[in-house]
């Protein structure tokens, strides 16, 4: 059937997303839990993504988009459609296999933060036949989708709870396996798709499927700031940004650079950070107490506390780190208890108090 070997094409010519500067990360007022969670995901992607839920209009998507401007650049194999790591090319990557040369030349690229819009069709998410080539040349070529673009970066879904079921099904599989498989009429592609899943939304509009919920490592709750001063400050900064985007971003550039250096330093340090045996036991007890199923909760707490320690410049994980991470790492993993209607956060806090009791 194939008249010539098909090769993966980088996503077709697009009108570039308006290259307007994004709101700077460090200019976001408050929302420390969310910001910390995003930084943790940036330091150690294996923590497994961040879900931000809560009040509307509290800057959830602003923070995610701001993160894109903050991340240190990464090295990728030149010409690889999936942006494989130049230092550690994926043996399964079809694009790298085609390039053949190894170790190949590398290029520096900014970490992809890819938006998955609600109305996306499956073919654009997983990748499909390259339309243009098929129609004009009658040639079968694979055009990578959003999952390919998000490889080694972030996949962001705003209003994630409104995402349609058939797209959720696709994500569940890929997010767990780190690999995207497309099989269709002679197209057979298997490519790496390891990304950090970021979601934001308001569960009041529809609950998230528990399986999807479980794919997120951390779950942060954002609330409207209660005092006038903070609210006014939020509006003022937003306003200043809208009026003069470049000036505003230049003003915050030094702060953003500091955060970027913090991420870089933490990444270097994280492998050397130890978690004392006694604390590992505490973590296990904590997860047992809240009834989180399987090892996912435990692993997330361990990894996230290490990343947090690395970010805060500590050499070992301490009790304080666990206290800080417990709620975001576990609040979405609680066993449903119809007889206890207190909030999930307070239930985790109760368990923390008992675990350290």
């Amino acid at each position, binding site marked *: 059937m194939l*008249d010539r070997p098909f090769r993966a094409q980088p*996503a*077709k010519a*697009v*009108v570039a*997303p*308006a290259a307007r500067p994004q709101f700077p990360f460090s200019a976001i007022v408050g929302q420390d839990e969310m910001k910390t969670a995003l930084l943790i995901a940036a330091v150690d992607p294996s923590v497994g993504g961040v879900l931000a839920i809560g*009040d*509307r*209009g*509290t*800057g959830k998507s602003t923070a995610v988009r701001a993160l894109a401007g903050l991340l240190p650049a990464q090295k990728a194999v030149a010409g690889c459609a999936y942006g494989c790591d130049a230092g550690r090319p994926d043996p399964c990557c079809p694009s790298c296999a085609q390039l053949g040369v190894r170790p190949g030349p590398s290029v520096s690229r900014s970490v992809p933060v890819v*938006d*998955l*819009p*609600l*109305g*996306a*069709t*499956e*073919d*654009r*998410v997983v990748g*499909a*036949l390259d*339309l*243009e080539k*098929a*129609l*004009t*040349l*009658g*040639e*079968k070529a694979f055009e990578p989708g959003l999952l390919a673009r998000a490889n080694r970066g972030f996949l962001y879904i*705003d*209003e994630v709870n*409104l995402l*349609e079921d*058939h797209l959720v099904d696709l994500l569940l599989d890929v997010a767990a396996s780190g690999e995207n498989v497309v099989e269709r*009429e002679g197209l057979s592609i298997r490519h790496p798709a390891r990304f950090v899943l970021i979601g934001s939304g*308001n*569960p*009041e*509009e*529809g609950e998230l499927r528990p399986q999807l919920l479980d794919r997120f490592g951390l779950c942060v709750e954002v609330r*409207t*700031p209660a005092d*006038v*001063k903070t*609210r*006014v400050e*939020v*509006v*003022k900064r*937003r*306003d200043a940004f809208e*009026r003069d985007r470049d000036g505003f971003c230049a003003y915050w550039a030094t702060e953003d650079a500091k955060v970027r250096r913090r991420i870089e330093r933490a990444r270097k340090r994280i492998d050397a950070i130890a978690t004392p045996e006694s604390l590992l036991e505490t973590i296990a007890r904590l997860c047992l107490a809240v009834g989180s199923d399987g090892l996912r909760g435990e692993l997330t707490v361990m990894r996230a506390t290490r990343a947090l320690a690395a970010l805060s410049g500590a050499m070992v994980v301490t009790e304080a780190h666990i206290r800080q991470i417990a709620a975001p790492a576990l609040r979405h993993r609680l066993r449903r208890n*119809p*007889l206890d*209607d207190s909030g999930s956060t307070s239930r985790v806090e109760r368990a923390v108090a008992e675990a350290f009791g």
Partner: protein
Amino acid sequence: MSRRSASVLAPHLQMGCESETAGPTFARQSSANPPTTVWTGAVAAVALLAIDPPGLGGLRVRGAAGPARDRLLSIFRTLLPDGAPFRKLPLGVSDGRLLGGLDLAATLASGRSVLERGLLAETDGGALVIPSAERIDAGLAGRLAGAIDNGVLALQRDGFASHLPARFSIFACDEALQDEQPPPAVLTERLGLVISLSGVGRHDLEVAAPRPDEIAAARAQLSSVALDDEALAALGQAAIELGVVGVRPLMFAAAAARASAALAGRKKVSAEDLALAGRLVLGPRATQAPARAQDREPEHDADQEEGPPPADGQSHDEAAEQDGNRREMAETVLQAAAAVLPRGLLDAAGAPPPMSKARSAPGRAGAAHGSKQRGRPIGSRPGAPDNGARLDLIDTLRAAAPWQGIRRRAAPTVATSPRVLVRREDFRIKRLKEKRRTVTIFAVDASGSAALHRLAEAKGAVELLLAQSYIRRDEVALVAFRGSGAEIVLPPTRSLARARRALTGLPGGGGTPLASGLDAAAALVGHACRRGDQPTLVVLTDGAANVARDGAGGRKRAQDDATAAARALGALGARAVLIDVSPRPQERARDLAEAMSARYVALPSADAAQMARAIGAGR
């Protein structure tokens, strides 16, 4: 569409809005006397929206369709820039039409992929009208929200990846009645301005409308209008006192105040502009009635102590004066907002508490769920048309289109080749969405302890709810418990007559087998869930049990049984309301409600109508 052609379609539109220059302009008129009537407020709202579409997002117009709304819409249309697109959003719009995608006909004709722009991209630079905003589902609202937030439509469909500009303002007509589900919050929270048109008379409409040139001038002025910190803090203060959630409303309020100042030709936001922002943005979003001024004083002092010390060179008096200013301005905002507070906020005592967040997820009309055979089409997915699934012909052709060249080349010898080569992989089947039926299950305590006259009221309430359910095509079931056991008086039905008959014949008196009653209700709830329906349980009782599950007497055991039954009911996760019908609210009834995770409503002196309202709000 140009303004000229607009006026051809709606000739009455010219009257008033293109008023002769000799008359007072709208801006001068409104700055002289700030909008006081519902109608002038509404006209001001469309003017502000036309001045700052990105800052305000849109307008939500509550109330029934009518000449007032039509007139408002046509005024709004005249205020848009010349040639600005003005489009209507059809309720059942498909993703392909809304967002865009592969243009099948053009693609097949030209042999290259042709992108068809969707409605949102086509509306760029103009306005989108949503005729029945309360009927759109959260998924559609979410797609709109994505475009509103970024001013850009992220298109990832049918092999196209592009970002198209989509900056538009929204005019959403919200015809939801008092007890109906409002439009999805994901949309309404992005519409800065909210007005209601109830009470507008015919003569009101004669008020002069702003002229397009005034709006254009104000638009040009907008960026030079100053909003000082004091004024912003006053808006923030008012927002907190009104219990407005989120920071976005505050941004909208600031934008509205600025646009108002620009319209009046002011360089600086004044108290009137703040008042207008309070009325159009903050007031309608209030979740609590603000405390009266004198009640607020002490809190206000504390707030001042918390604040930073006055800056150098600024005397304490000055700081105090500034604070007083802010207080005064906040008061102005609150007063303006008070005119438009949501109904029911002021008689808070009689109003039921807001629904608990966990339970509010599915819509009143029944959560939608996927279905293969019935319901409204919501798109397509790959799959074979078997097991009752329906083929989506257009999408199948769309999937097959790109492959035509390849397939023809692969099999060029087929002489009788059909015009389009369709393979099994191309099949797309329709995804349908079906509304779930709602079943309201009443469990009525008909025992002696629940006093017979209360039973009459309960019957009245049930009858009223029945009528409401009938309109919504919901089903109703009735369980009664008295004496030694419970009885399903009425299995789930839509028949109003049958339900009424069953109710009238319901006897009262005897012991209270609460546990049996709850068990019977739980059975009905479980049955409804298994059928795929969405049950709502309403329990009317005083919570005092004296007959155990096995029919034996004994208060202690009966109460324990009842609590256990309530727990089991709660574990089913159905929405539930417990109405305490005893003359004085009872602790045990409250405990019972908690055990079954139901909302507790005490109605010590309720009449049937009030009871029906309380239940309605809980669903």
